[in-house]
């Protein structure tokens, strides 16, 4: 997954020289906006970042982020999805691309744009043309059988976040089973448990994002290094 197809003639996005676009999807009420706010607080001092929200009906999510003052207003953009949140992140990503490009233009040094999807069902999946990486958020109160049911979001996201673990004893959810079931459908891709009430910094998710950015910078560096060696060889011959 991702936009780093160096030789892809159909590449929909610019692979280098722009911010990493991170999609955050998941069902209504799973905690996407609270996670986005926590990530902004955790990462804003080390990364140049911005957020696009895909509100279903209002600009409530964007308003929440502004009210919480996690970022300055000019770094938060709300997109309307015409009653089809999954269309806006998958089939027709133009409004989100427009928003990302406008943010990038306003803040040319951006490292990371978080694109938060509107609350959707388990089949929601971000297009590779929009998101370089994607996180799917479930909450334990939504039913501990959800990871077993799978779905595109649960199975294919680069990171699965099982959120609100503090509620597990209250709603009788079996966290160990959720973790095992998720592992089975995800083929080894990472799963983290989070509780913003107990760990408001979303430490596990923030650490994963740092890792992604580090790996990309490293890959890019290797790539440049390889080019440099080719140039040296060409010059020597």
């Amino acid at each position: 997954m991702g936009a780093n197809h160096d030789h892809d003639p159909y590449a929909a996005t610019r692979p280098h020289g722009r911010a990493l676009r991170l999609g955050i999807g998941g069902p209504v009420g799973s905690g996407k906006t609270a996670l986005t706010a926590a990530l902004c607080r955790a990462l804003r001092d080390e990364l140049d970042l911005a957020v696009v929200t895909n509100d279903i009906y209002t600009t409530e999510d964007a308003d929440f982020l502004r009210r919480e003052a996690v970022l300055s207003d000019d770094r938060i953009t709300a997109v309307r999805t015409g009653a089809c949140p999954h269309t806006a992140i998958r089939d027709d990503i133009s409004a989100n691309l427009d928003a990302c490009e406008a943010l990038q233009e306003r803040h040319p040094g951006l490292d990371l744009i978080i694109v938060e999807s509107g609350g959707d069902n388990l089949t929601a999946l971000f297009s590779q043309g929009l998101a370089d990486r994607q996180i799917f958020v479930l909450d334990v109160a939504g039913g501990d059988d959800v990871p077993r049911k799978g779905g595109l979001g649960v199975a294919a996201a680069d990171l699965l976040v099982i959120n609100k673990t503090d509620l597990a004893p209250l709603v009788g959810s079996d966290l160990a089973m959720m973790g095992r079931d998720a592992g089975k459908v995800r083929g080894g891709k990472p799963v983290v448990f989070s509780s913003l009430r107990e760990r408001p910094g979303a430490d596990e998710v923030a650490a994963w994002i740092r890792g992604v950015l580090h790996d990309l910078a490293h890959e890019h560096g290797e790539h440049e290094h390889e080019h440099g060696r080719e140039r040296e060889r060409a010059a020597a011959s």
Partner: protein
Amino acid sequence: MRASLLLLADSRLPAGGHAHSGGLEPAVAAGAVRDVPALADFLRGRLATSGLVAAALAAAACAHAARGGGAWAALDAETDARTPSPAQRAASRAQGRSLLRVARTAWASPALDALAGTPGGPHHPAVLGAAAAAMGAAPREAAEITAYMAVTGPASAGIRLLGLDPLAVNRALAVLAADVDAVAAEAAGFADGPWAELPAASAPLLDLYAERHLRTDLRLFES
């Protein structure tokens, strides 16, 4: 070429249309459209006014692009002059930007490249016309696609906003098809004339709805 034209007219074209209701959402909010007959009336009115204007602009853009299509500022100004509502201008430019991204990814054309320089993004009919020209289509075909989209977009929004029976809405569109063809034929007649004489049919209620929509707290569609 025929299949390319179908791609351009397809509602699945990833050009942002799904988030625009063509003024239907504020009409629904105002209680003016509640059922399929009222939707059909809305579509007929829209087709005769902004549909005709957009189709004629697209036909003119197609003819201009076929001639090389370097300078777009005058047609852009003519479009602004026929779009009194700032909200509708913004919606047209937003859809124009999205369509231009799609069109330039799919079809190589200097006219499309030139449109990219339009401040704020090009108007939607101009891009539709230039995209049609890029695949060798005639102004009449650009007008047909534009007139068709002027009614199919809001019809689809009606299904989503009101839960209308999609079969009944489709029948209403089928009844309207002859009118769509007639509007496209009329619009195509302006393709090679002076731009100042392009039709300027207005729909003041649609303009008011568009402005009111921008100030509404609860809305699903951009326009």
